[in-house]
């Protein structure tokens, strides 16, 4: 059993790494949003997997919560980038750097 659990954890850690990598390297806002989603989904995977192997099934409920919240977050993010696109005609985050220093 626990071998199977470790598989899930390995996948989830891999997803976490991919997500953080994507956030620090990609410049396109939409891709960065994807990266955040990947991290959240890594966590969701964890939650569901743990819930499967634990007597306490709260993890699955939590995963549902987390999906809903992530959706709300993405909605806000997309709204922000639409506003930005209207002003700059551009969604390259690295170009937004008038605030610095």
């Amino acid at each position, binding site marked *: 059993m626990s071998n199977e659990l470790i598989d899930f954890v390995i996948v989830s850690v891999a997803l976490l790494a991919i997500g953080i990598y994507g956030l620090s390297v*990609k410049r396109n806002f939409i891709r960065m949003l994807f990266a955040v989603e990947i991290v959240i989904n890594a966590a969701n995977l964890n939650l569901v997997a743990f819930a499967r192997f634990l007597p306490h099934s709260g993890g699955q409920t939590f995963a549902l919560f987390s999906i809903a919240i992530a959706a709300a977050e993405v909605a806000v993010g997309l709204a922000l980038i639409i506003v930005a696109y209207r002003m700059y005609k551009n969604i390259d985050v*690295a170009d937004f750097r008038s605030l*610095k*220093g």
Partner: protein
Amino acid sequence: MATEIIATEGDAMFAWLIWILPFVAALIIPAVAKVSKLSTGRVAIGFAAMSAISAAMLFPMALEGHEIHSQVDWISAIGLKAGVLADPLSIIMANVVGWISFLIICYSTGYMKGDKDIVRFWFWMMFFIGSMQLIVLSDNLLQLFFGWEGVGLASYALIAFWYRDKAKHHVGKEGRTVLGIMEYYSPTHSGMKAFIMTKVGDVMMLAGMFLIFAFAGTFGFKELLADTAWAVNMSAEGLLVPAVVLLFGGAIGKSAQFPLNEWLLEAMTGPTAVSALIHAATMVKAGVFLVARLGPLVFALGAAGILVDQFFEIIAWVGAFTALLLATQAMVNPEIKKVLAYSTGSQIGYMMMALGIAGLSEQFVDGYTAGFYHMISHAMFKASLFMAAGSLLHVVGSRFMTDMGGLRKKMRKTYAFMWAAGLGLMGAPFITTGFWSKDAIFAAVYESGNEWALPIFIIAVLTAAITAFYTTRMMGLVFFGKESKHIEKMESEGHHIHDAPRSMWIPYGILAVLTIGIGVIGFSAEGGIHELFTEYLDESFGIQTPHIDVEISGSLGFLSGLNPIAVGASLVAFAVGFGLGYIFYIGRWVDPVKFINSNIFFYALHKVILNRWYLNAMIYWGFVIAPLWAARAIWRYFEKTAIDTGMNTGLERSVRFGAKVVQGTQTGVAQSYLFVFGAGLLFVVLILLI
């Protein structure tokens, strides 16, 4: 009568209200000013009255010798408590301060009428009174120090109140120099001078406070008395006397005693109401109060076998010397307010002398009562004199007595009240409070049996004669003789010279009448305080008085308790001083100027005294000009080379460099931020794992 009576909640509340109410007034006055500028005066009067009434509510308790000690946690995390200690000493003091301040506030409504900065004036006045009452009522040194600094701040703001530095608000004569130092000061200069000179004392006081705290672990007066192990330890280290003398340093600064006396004269640049407050109620009395607060405590330590005599010797000699020094200068000064200021310093010297002598004698209570009683009587007549002088200035428009003269017909009320209060200052026999309190001091000094008793007694009597002389001189110059050119000019321009408005003369009238009124029963009043303090000192400090030789009886038999030598000396001093003053200034049989010029000795003496014994000039040379030279030299030869290029520039550069580095990381690019975030996460996890 038990001292540990459980006071009611209400009584404790009054004790708190005495000092809280003026602060509340200070806070709400700016807000009230938004609605109506005129009402601010009423608010000030109302709160001053409520504060004074709160003090009065406690008065019966003081007469019975009860005390209230109410504490609240201040900062419990580090064990500090705030509290009020209302014992006979502080209650009587709070009443004196409260009622005199109230009268001065009433007076100010007339005196300051129409000043456009009136709101600032009321704010600082109430702040001043609140700070003073905080000093009086606090039960520990730290809280007292807060009030102490509050008083210092308020005095600075009020002395420099007319910060636009118009010529008519200066003190001294324009162009007059002593040893190359100009003795002509603007309000802002004087405010700063007062602030810095008293600050010298404050720093000493702070050092003494923390020295004691380091050994005792508490600031509370009660706690310090309850367990005296700290004093034994300090004494063993030889630190006890230095510590209490450092505390006395604070009192020297606040009470303008030698060598920190010079600020008091320049403090005359403030509005006269402020001068009255400083001299009678709030500022200079703080030092005396501090000594009165600490004296019994130190004496009790002395009674327990710890050597503290030097402390009291220093107090007595500082007091005696200041009394003489400043009295002589009052003889020659041409400005009415400065004469009164010198006189205050000199009278405070009397009080210090008495409190010091108390600690050197068997009968602590005699000197203690004498000093305290003199403080009360001085508060009354000096407040009255100042307010009267203020109305003279108000009417005549000049601070020089040579610009007055012959005013007795024109300002009858002021004339009468100034005589009454002035007689108090002179110590006119048997009918003024000043006589009885001064006589008590003489008696205490004479009977102390100390080796210094005789020289100090002689100084005291001499000073008394001088006091009578300069007071007579002041009265003569202002009210007798011919009208001065200045007044003639004013009258010819159509000014009508008359008494000040009612809101001004009633307050000083009340105090002048009280000076005589209480003076008539003065001896029994003193007996009452004596008895009260005997008991207070016994119950609170365990200071036993071997025998009480004061009889309290209303009829003529009252003279039996007097010391004949003290009374005799007092009478002679009064007679000599008044007589000489009369010859020169009221009868004007001899011209004082000719008299001085007639003899090289008198001429030199006059010059030395008029130049303030060169003390002021020396202080400026030693502590202002020389340090400036030194600072410039250090700056040029040392700072600029070593410190500036080495440390300052280095420090500044490194901070700037650090700022540049940090700002450099803040590139504005979100990716780099996120990268740092990721690296930080790794860093934290690594630290945790290791």
